[in-house]
């Protein structure tokens, strides 16, 4: 971490006496500087990397010669050479590195060092970043060298400083072994004096420096004396200490001892802690002396029980004192770090009385970091291809950032062993199986130990593809330089390139590719695959993470951005409404995405499909069609009911504006959207338990009265209940339903279907009171006293009639006729009006005894507001239409009618029509049913003078439904807006949101109402047609002759097969509302969700490109941005 501001003094060079927070690794560096180190080197590897990185940073300022060596063996030899030449030297690596350097390591002690030499080999108990957790304390007795272990940062500094002296006293290299916990813990360190070192120079002495057999035998004997000297030199409290008093002792080393001390201190236990900072040679005499005062001894160790190794220096079991100690120690588990395991076995039993019990942490999903797209070198859009490849072939991976490619989504690794083994494993497997294999290796690993491996494969011309991934730097450990590349101040200088090296090694087929050039990369890979024998591919692309961090191009930086045209996020920003269905919910979502993408290939896609834009409720039709096509009806239901609380009613009576704009109509006929909805709802009704349950916010104590239980009132009540309100629903009629119950005949909306909807709404905990009329039984002010707010949804109760001269048939209002189900007619009837009530009244009149029924309306046939299907059904049943006509006179026999023509397109009021001369006729009528509309009844609201009226409707805020009285909201036909059932539901939801917003503020926006019609843009563009494009399905209808006799439901339901085929007719012409793959599949902090849109924050983006890899629509691309100073 280099969080300090530039220009400030480097904390590692702070003046003596100051106390600073150092990482254990930084303390090691400071310790070495205080010891006057002259040469430092190493190979980066977690957890040791900060040591070499700090030296790299400080080399110039301190005059210490530093290098990142090509590998650990070379680093060790370099440090040894420096020591022979009289310079104090330090070499740093991770534990695995030192065993790699085993050859020189085992001989160095024989020869012995001149100036102090410290080997830092950072251990990794629990394998946090390593494939094994080898215990390097064994190396002490094995190669004859002192092994010391710091317990914390301060000790790391002091021990490192002392280690040089120790090394010189015993003429042996000293192994300093910090563990991850010490390396990566930052603690206060008080620093000493920095000391410039000196270089004594090399003096020839072949007897000393050449371990030929004769000399080696002599050296072996000297080793014992040197170890004895080491024992004598580690007698200070820095290397061993006894703390606390008690008859029970605990013996622990280094980091484990620090944990023990803290645990015992927390417990307040009276225990004598024997602290060892030296693992080899063990201070036997001191230990024996300490044991004398103890009854019991516990040995707490990380990894393996090295302190109990029987030979050579350790005391015998009896000398370790009480028998219980030996047996107790023997049962400690021989693995992993103290922190986790120190409380195991008998130790835990011993402590249990004082340690509160803890349940073990539950297993959680791992949060693995996925591999960079560029580092895998397959190019961004090649993921599917790469995956297909990965399934068919054997990949041998290696150690580096590309190791992450073994994980999802690439899974590009079948085996992994050690540095450089990617090529050897691939070669070995190819030689015995005869099959072609692939080996991967990064640039730094290639130089570390991959070159001999490749040379070996070249020699045998092994049938394999060797891929060298060259990204300039050693990316995994923090962007260190590699042998052919110099990194200084974030700039890269290349000395040579790997292709030349590989050619020089003798490889015949060597190709260079840039993975960003995908087509060429694929060609090269294919050729390499098909060619027998060894092919080498050098894939070159700079590490984008490094390029960005280092500012490779000053003032410019590459980040990734989302192309909004291609992104398949929900296009519903205007409302912020999103369906809650995640991408993981099923493959049909993927199908929607894929098809939206497919259609996107033909040009820009409207963010929202035409059907959804036309729907007052903004339902995601293409979403639920896709679910139906896939047979996932519960998911379809969820999409529907997310915005529609009364599905049973609406799937029967909706006026279907969606079908009017369906782009499929441009090909043949619109998708039967409402029938699909009906299919899902009927499916749900048949399930033992209704599959959808609205998720409700917890009650927050506010209460609301909703007046009117029609579609708007029910929707508002439902919405408010979902938002956590206590809701009281009042209606003048005895039963809830309003127009749905009293204005729509049962053959269209059976009472049972309505009852299901009503039940589901009321079941949420809504209190219904029937037979309570506003203005008669209660007033708005009374409601406001007991409630926080009121929603008025009393509908339009006052029917309109036109003034027609003459006297004749009995006049009725269609709505009261429909409401009074017992009323019978005799003789012919004429219905006036072109809307759904007119058609309903006409068809009901037929069923209630009228001998013949005619509809008279001003509109032309195709301009009638009634649902086209309903008009057609009415005609089938025998209703005759007199469109483009109006009544001119009532006569005892019936009515006189005259033809009219519209004066302008979109004519809506009677004054927009003119009579056509001479086009009169007479219609027989005993009954005249008025169905030319209705307006709200102002009488019911007379008692509330605070309300304002406009054009026979309540004046409301069109966004929020708020009336002139601040705590009173209006919805449905009472308010201006579309006068349809679906429109009323939308207004109900909008008023509920407006009310919630006024009472609770922004919280209400978590759930938005359908967007305001004024903000919609219905754009239709052709989507994708399926090959198996079917004809529009039609639900079964009862025969006209049969159905006019009763009020049984006339229209049936699609069969499952029909529904699924019909759903496939949807062309998915809009963007899928719900891709979200970047958010849901890849948890990068740079992704920001703004409303419904997704954006990448350039300040956070590191330019790694993983997201571009994940994006299923290819909407994420790299951009270069200017960066301020």
């Amino acid at each position: 971490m280099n969080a300090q501001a530039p220009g400030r003094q480097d904390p590692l060079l702070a003046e003596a006496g100051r106390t600073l927070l150092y990482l254990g690794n930084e303390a090691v560096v400071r310790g070495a500087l205080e010891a006057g180190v002259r040469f430092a080197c190493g190979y980066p590897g977690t957890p040791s990397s900060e040591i070499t990185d700090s030296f790299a940073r400080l080399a110039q300022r301190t005059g210490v010669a530093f290098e990142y060596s090509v590998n650990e063996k070379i680093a060790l030899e370099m440090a040894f050479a420096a020591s022979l030449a009289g310079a104090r030297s330090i070499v740093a690596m991770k534990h695995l590195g030192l065993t790699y350097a085993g050859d020189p390591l085992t001989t160095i002690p024989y020869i012995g060092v001149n100036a102090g030499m410290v080997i830092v080999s950072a251990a990794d108990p629990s394998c946090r970043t390593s494939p094994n957790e080898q215990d390097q304390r064994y190396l002490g007795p094995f190669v004859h060298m002192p092994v010391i272990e710091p317990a914390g940062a301060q000790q790391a500094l002091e021990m490192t400083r002392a280690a040089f002296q120790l090394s010189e006293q015993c003429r042996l290299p000293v192994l300093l072994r910090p563990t991850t916990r010490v390396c990566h813990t930052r603690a206060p360190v008080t620093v000493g004096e920095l000391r410039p070192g000196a270089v004594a120079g090399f003096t020839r002495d072949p007897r000393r420096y050449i371990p030929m057999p004769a000399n080696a035998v002599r050296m072996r004997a000297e080793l014992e004396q040197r170890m004895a000297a080491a024992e004598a030199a580690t007698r200070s409290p820095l290397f061993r200490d006894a703390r606390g008093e008690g008859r029970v002792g605990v013996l622990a080393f280094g980091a484990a001892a620090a944990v023990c001390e803290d645990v015992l201190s927390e417990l307040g236990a009276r225990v004598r802690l024997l602290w060892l900072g030296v693992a080899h040679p063990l201070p036997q005499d001191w230990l024996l002396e300490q044991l004398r005062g103890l009854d019991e001894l516990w040995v707490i160790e990380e990894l393996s029980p090295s302190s109990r190794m029987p030979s050579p220096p350790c005391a015998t079991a009896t000398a370790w004192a009480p028998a219980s100690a030996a047996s107790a120690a023997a049962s400690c588990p021989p693995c992993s770090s103290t922190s986790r395991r120190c409380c195991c076995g008998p130790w835990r039993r011993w402590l249990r009385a004082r340690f509160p019990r803890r349940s073990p942490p539950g297993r959680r999903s791992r949060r693995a970091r996925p591999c960079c797209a560029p580092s895998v070198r397959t190019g961004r859009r090649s993921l599917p291809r790469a995956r297909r490849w990965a399934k068919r072939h054997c990949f041998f991976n290696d150690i580096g950032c590309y190791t992450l490619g073994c994980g999802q989504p690439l899974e590009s690794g079948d085996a992994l062993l050690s540095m450089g083994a990617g090529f050897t494993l691939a070669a070995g497997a190819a030689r015995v199986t005869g099959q072609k294999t692939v080996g991967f290796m990064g640039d730094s690993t290639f130089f570390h130990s991959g070159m001999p491996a490749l040379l070996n494969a070249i020699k045998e011309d092994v049938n394999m593809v060797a891929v060298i991934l060259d990204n300039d730097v050693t990316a995994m450990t923090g962007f260190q330089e590699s042998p052919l590349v110099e990194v200084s101040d974030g700039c890269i200088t290349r000395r040579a390139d790997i292709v030349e090296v590989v050619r020089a090694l003798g490889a015949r087929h060597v190709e260079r590719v840039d993975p960003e050039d995908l087509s060429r990369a694929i060609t090269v890979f294919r050729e390499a695959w098909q060619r027998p024998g060894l092919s080498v591919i050098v894939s070159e692309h700079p590490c984008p993470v490094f390029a960005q961090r280092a500012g490779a191009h000053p003032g410019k930086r590459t980040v990734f951005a989302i192309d909004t045209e291609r992104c398949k996020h929900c296009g519903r920003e205007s409302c912020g409404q999103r369906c809650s269905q995640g991408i993981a919910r099923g493959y049909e979502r993927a199908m929607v995405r894929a098809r939206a993408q497919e259609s996107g290939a033909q040009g820009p896609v409207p963010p929202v499909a035409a059907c959804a834009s036309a729907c007052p409720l903004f339902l995601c039709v293409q979403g639920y069609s896709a679910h139906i096509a896939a047979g996932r009806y519960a998911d379809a239901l969820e999409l529907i009911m997310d915005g529609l609380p009364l599905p049973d009613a609406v799937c029967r009576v909706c006026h279907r504006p969606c079908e009017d704009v369906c782009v499929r109509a441009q090909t043949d006929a619109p998708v039967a959207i409402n029938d699909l909805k009906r299919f899902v709802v009927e499916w749900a009704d048949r399930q033992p338990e209704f599959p959808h349950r609205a998720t409700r916010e917890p009650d927050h104590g506010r209460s609301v009265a909703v007046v009117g239980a029609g579609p708007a009132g029910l929707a508002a009540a439902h919405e408010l209940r979902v938002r956590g309100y206590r809701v009281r629903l009042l209606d003048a009629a005895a039963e809830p339903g309003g127009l749905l119950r009293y204005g729509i005949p049962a053959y269209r909306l059976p009472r049972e279907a309505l009852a299901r909807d009503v039940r589901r709404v009321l079941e949420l905990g809504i209190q219904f009171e029937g037979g309570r009329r506003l203005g008669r039984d209660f007033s708005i002010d009374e409601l406001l006293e007991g409630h926080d707010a009121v929603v008025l949804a009393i509908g339009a109760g006052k029917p309109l009639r036109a003034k027609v001269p003459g006297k004749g048939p009995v006049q009725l209002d269609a709505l009261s006729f429909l409401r009074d189900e017992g009323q019978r007619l005799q003789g012919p009837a004429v219905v006036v009006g072109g809307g759904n009530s007119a058609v309903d009244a006409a068809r009901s009149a037929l069923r209630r005894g009228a001998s013949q029924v005619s509809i008279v309306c001003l509109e032309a046939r195709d301009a009638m507001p009634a649902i086209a299907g309903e008009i057609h059904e009415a005609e089938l049943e025998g209703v005759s239409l007199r469109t483009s006509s109006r009544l001119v006179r009532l006569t005892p026999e019936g009515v006189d009618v005259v033809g009219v023509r519209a004066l302008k397109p979109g004519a809506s009021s009677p004054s927009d029509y003119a009579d056509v001369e001479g086009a009169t006729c007479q219609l027989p009528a005993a009954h005249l049913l008025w169905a030319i509309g209705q307006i709200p009844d102002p009488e019911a609201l007379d008692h509330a003078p605070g309300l304002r009226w406009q054009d026979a409707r309540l004046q409301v805020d069109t966004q929020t439904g708020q009336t002139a009285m601040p705590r009173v909201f209006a919805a449905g036909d009472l308010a201006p807006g579309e006068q349809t059932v679906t429109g009323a539901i939308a207004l109900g939801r909008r008023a509920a949101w407006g009310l919630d917003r006024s009472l609770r503020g922004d919280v209400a926006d978590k759930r938005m109402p359908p967007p305001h019609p004024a903000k919609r843009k219905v754009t239709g563009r052709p989507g994708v047609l399926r090959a198996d494009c079917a004809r529009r399905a039609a639900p079964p209808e009862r025969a006209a002759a049969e159905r006019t006799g009763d009020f049984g439901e006339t229209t049936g339901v699609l069969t499952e097969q029909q529904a699924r085929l019909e759903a496939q007719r949807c062309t998915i012409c809009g963007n899928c509302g719900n891709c979200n793959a970047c958010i849901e599949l890849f948890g990068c902090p740079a992704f920001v969700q703004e409303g419904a849109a997704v954006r990448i924050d350039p300040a956070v983006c590191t330019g790694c490109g993983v997201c571009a890899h994940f994006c299923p629509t290819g909407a994420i691309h790299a951009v270069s941005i200017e960066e301020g100073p």
Partner: protein
Amino acid sequence: MSADTSLRILLAGVGGQGVLTGARVIGEAALAAGLPVRIGQLHGMSQRGGSVEATVVIGPGRTAFVGAGACDCLLALEPLEALRASARLKPGAQVWLNTATLVPATLGALGRPYPSLPQIEQALAARGARVHSLDASALAARAGAARAVSPVMLGVLVGAGRLPVSERQFEQAMRDFTPPRVLETTLRAWRLGIDASMQQSGKEAERA
């Protein structure tokens, strides 16, 4: 050997959120206040996008180790990471939870659901913790940089008065260990965190 008086803070988040820097700033502020402090950080493979946690222990002792049932304060920069750390909570521990989620790749790919926020809050509460939830990412965005989740959470911690460090000392540590380029937004985010924390404690007091 005395009874334990240390304050053990755990910061849990996702690579890139600023967990390590956050821990560093708390540690430096404590050091400046003359308190014994240690910072532990677990990183390595957990670069961007992986889990990252850091511990800060203020009080006498040698390790920065926060074991099971030992954590006094959890600053969770991501809800799932809070869940992961839940076993470490001491009964009565305080948890500050950023509610903005980052769904791990493995979860999505395996088709497993991300636990819901109430589930996570319940799991934390079941450990006897007091959970304070807030949308720190939104505040960070308001401060001008979505990356500044960590400063917001630090502000929350400071505003809650849980640190034995004065606000001024903490601000100095922020200034010392934040690159000048982002100092302004970082401090702004930090102050928004303090305000949010004050408001929250006010509301909680009201409710009580």
